[in-house]
């Protein structure tokens, strides 16, 4: 195991294997050039909400794709639950299926449609269950994508900058919604983002990825609901921005 990582992990309580949703052990990824992920090691506990910050090209999307099973990885470096779901930056709904069919797609339970309806109620989109995806607004489409992920009852929910393409007001609503859904269903969450505020609003723990290695791994011990105005919030914000190479004046 890499020195930096062990030292960073040291202040985290050691958990029993059954408490762990995700375990990454010495994961290295390269695409023929310099390594995108360099000997990464970390774990995510069951029900833990982890935000992964990083600048463009830091390898955070590669890490998420690897956890999602979209990019291959040596099996000994990775433990992930079977039940996982991904919400991408774009909704990626099938335009030729109505919203409900999109949400229930691939569900193998007998009451798939019923479950899908329930998920749509949770994301406040049940009035659009018969709509074609291309008629949805950006926020609605992303809520449908969220319902599609939720309905699979994931133990690990992977969010790849899911709010990046939304307008500011819609983004705030969506952040609130994700927080509520996480509290209700308690999946482990890995939220990839470049928005420090978003990470601090939602996450139990924030990691900063820099040049394919974890540069910061911090618990966010602020009371919920989180407020931008809190002194603690601001302190962490400055610290994380510093880790991302942005100095606030």
């Amino acid at each position, binding site marked *: 195991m890499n020195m930096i990582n062990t030292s960073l992990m040291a202040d985290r309580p050691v958990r029993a294997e059954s408490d762990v949703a995700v375990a990454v052990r010495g994961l290295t990824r390269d695409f023929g050039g310099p390594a995108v992920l360099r000997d990464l090691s970390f774990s995510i506990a069951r029900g833990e909400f982890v935000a992964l910050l990083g600048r463009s090209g830091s390898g955070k999307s590669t890490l998420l794709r690897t956890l999602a099973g979209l990019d291959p990885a040596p099996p000994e470096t990775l433990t992930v639950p079977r039940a996982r779901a991904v919400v991408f930056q774009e909704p990626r709904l099938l335009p030729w299926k109505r919203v409900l069919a999109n949400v229930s797609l*691939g569900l193998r339970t007998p009451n798939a449609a019923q479950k899908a309806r329930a998920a749509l109620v949770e994301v406040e989109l049940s009035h659009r269950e018969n709509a074609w995806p291309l008629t949805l607004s950006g926020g609605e489409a992303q809520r449908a994508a969220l319902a599609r992920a939720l309905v699979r009852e994931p133990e690990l929910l992977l969010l790849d900058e899911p709010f990046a393409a939304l307008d500011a007001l819609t983004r705030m609503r969506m952040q609130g919604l994700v927080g509520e859904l996480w509290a209700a269903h308690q999946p482990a969450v890995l939220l990839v983002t470049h928005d420090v505020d978003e990470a601090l609003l939602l996450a139990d723990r924030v990691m900063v990825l820099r040049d394919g290695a974890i540069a910061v791994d911090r618990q966010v011990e602020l009371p919920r609901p989180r407020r931008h105005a809190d002194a603690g919030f601001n302190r962490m914000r400055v610290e994380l921005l510093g880790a991302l190479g942005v100095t606030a004046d």
Partner: protein
Amino acid sequence: MSGAAITLPTASRAASRLPWRRVNGFLRRAYVPIVIVLLWQAGSALGLYSVQTVPPPTVVAQAAWQLACSGQLAINIWVSLERVAFGLSIGVAIGTLFALIAGLSRLGEDAIDSTVQMVRTLPHLALIPLMIMWFGIGETPKITLIALGSMFPIYLNLFAGIRGADRKLREAAGTLGLSQFETILHVVLPAALPGFLVGLRQAFGISWITLVVAEQINASAGIGYLVMNARDFLRTDIIFVGLTIYALLGLLTDSSVRFLEHHFLAWRPAYLKQESGK
């Protein structure tokens, strides 16, 4: 007047356009062809051209009526339709099969694509002499030619459609736990459907062209036979009947594909806009 113009909101301008919009869509589209037919008749009445060279619509209609009464019209249309139905079915089936094999696997692409692309460059009508030598002058060469001509547009458009299926959607389908077969069924094939329907439209067009050429060689029935026979008896009016039937059949098949598009591609923005505009 100017006062009225100022108070005219956009809503009432839209309302003034409504009577025309409310006219049946078919009538709106048929308007210009009807005017052309009327001008054609008028030109004949004014003696601009002789009835022998360009028979007016009334004479053509009369000839059509006579052919219909004698039963010749129905028989010959039926024979022609049968040729297209058989040939097109075979062509679409083979084109679809090849496109699926080549589109869904690299191995299939290597085996099929270059060969099909090579054969495609050959104008299929150039094969008529060979077809006659191989299959004689019966139905087989005609149906084979139609099948051959219609399979390429299906193959090309469906293959492109399959390969053009959004990689991001396929990826998302993978994360939803869809098997490879389900991904093809729910993601790849629906994505390729618009291409397939474009191919079908082109295939119909080629079928009619092929039919016209094939029927003018050694046919003993069919619209082409009707036309060639009329030429021998200098019956320009019957030739016009044949041409009109070709045009109507082409129109019919085109609108049937249009219907399929409306039905199967209802999710597309173009159709969605029409729906909300109603």
